[in-house]
């Protein structure tokens, strides 16, 4: 196999890594918000449930969570949901791995939503109560205060920890190969097994590095853009 062929094959895998990355961000980031609000709820039950969920999800390895999501429908209901999706999508549309990828996406979105929720909670709780009170004495509603006063300060404060999580996320996507999803490292391992090529495995690092480099630049820009005020 030529260098170009290997690169193309690895890039096919990296597209799956990027898909997992994008979907996790797009679903996990919004989903973290209601979880954060539940964790701060006045209602003790809501708060405890939310905190227990966050504890469990952050407390066990993501790899294990992928296994759980993937195998639980079969174990509990005797229906291999994701395996069926795999078969159906392959037979009907020739798309491989659709069910496995779905399982991975669910596990990732839930896992990251919990991490994000803790970042949101920390950000929201770090805003001084004087900011709320200044809004109250100006006759504003709670929702106006949150949207127009608190939110932007929270965003400014959470950009650095979110950046960290986002950079971790692209590397975590490699975990998808624990249920044989063809992400980049899985493809590289396949080359090692079938073509006796070991260098592609190390070469995958370049893909991650380039992507993380781009991410770092973009995230730093965002951080800079928000640094015009100090809260």
């Amino acid at each position, binding site marked *: 196999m030529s260098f170009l062929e290997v690169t193309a094959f690895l890039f096919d895998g990296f597209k799956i890594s990027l898909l997992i990355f994008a979907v996790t961000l797009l679903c996990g980031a919004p989903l973290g918000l209601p979880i954060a609000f539940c964790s701060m709820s006045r209602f003790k039950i809501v708060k405890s449930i939310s905190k227990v969920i966050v504890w469990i999800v952050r407390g066990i390895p993501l790899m294990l969570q992928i296994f759980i999501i993937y195998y639980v429908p079969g174990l509990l209901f005797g229906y291999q949901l994701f395996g069926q999706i795999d078969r159906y999508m392959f037979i009907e549309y020739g798309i491989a791995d659709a069910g496995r990828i779905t399982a991975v996406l669910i596990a990732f979105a839930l896992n990251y939503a919990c991490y994000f929720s803790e970042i949101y909670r920390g950000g929201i709780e770090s805003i001084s109560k004087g*900011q709320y009170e*200044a809004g109250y004495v100006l006759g504003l509603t709670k929702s106006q205060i949150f949207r127009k006063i608190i939110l932007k300060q929270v965003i400014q404060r959470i950009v650095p920890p979110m950046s960290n999580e986002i950079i971790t996320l692209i590397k975590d996507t490699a975990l998808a190969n624990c249920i044989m999803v063809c992400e980049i490292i899985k493809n590289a391992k396949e080359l090692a097994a079938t073509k006796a090529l070991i260098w592609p495995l190390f070469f995958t690092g370049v893909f991650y590095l380039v992507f993380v480099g781009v991410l770092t630049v973009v995230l730093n820009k965002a951080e800079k853009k928000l640094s015009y*005020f100090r809260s």
Partner: protein
Amino acid sequence: MAILEVSNIKKSFGKTEVLKDISFTLEKGDVLSIIGSSGSGKTTLLRCLNFLETTDCGKIVADGEVLFDSEDKTKMTDEKIRENRLNFGLVFQNFNLFPQYTVLQNLTLAPTLLKKGDDVTIKQKALELIKKVGLEEKADFYPCQLSGGQQQRVAIARALALNPKILFFDEPTSALDPELTMEVLNVIKGLKESGCTMVIVTHEMAFARDVSDKVIFMDGGVIVEQGDPEQVINNPQNERTKHFLNRYKENS
């Protein structure tokens, strides 16, 4: 008729009774200073009057309108509390400006959200107020680019942007260096001249004496002595007031 009538206000936090039966009145255009040692309940009183704390007992009447009456058992809605708050303005010890907005935006935010007029009028009024507190060159600055004294003047202007009937100050200068204190006190003096009704919690005795029409001395959650400033500050009758003011003279 008095613009503010406070009768028999009580407030406890758990078992500690912080305000025990506070009553006073304030005439339109007057300046009232509240003095008293730390923990005597001055901040709590201002917070109760501005509906940042729920008052346990008593009655608050502003300009003839009953804002709060513990005899009236109907529950206060959030809407009513917000309306009540709009009667008054409150200036905090640590300013609490909105950091992501410029000086001008700090002033226009609430009037715009509350639809108090069209954008042009709101902006014009805001610029006038910014001028009034002497910051016309700083209208487009962010709070972090201003000194403490300037920030506090913005906070005063922001409170005035909603035309409150009474402006409350909780130790407006105690987070400031002595040089910056004067610029804020001068703004307050200017407001008095333009007829603004104000209630000021302060530790600046000389200022309280010069600017006030009435002084209240609080201790342990009660009003120990009240009257005109000359009398309360220069010639206190009560032992506790004398004791408090003596300590002040020793310290300054």
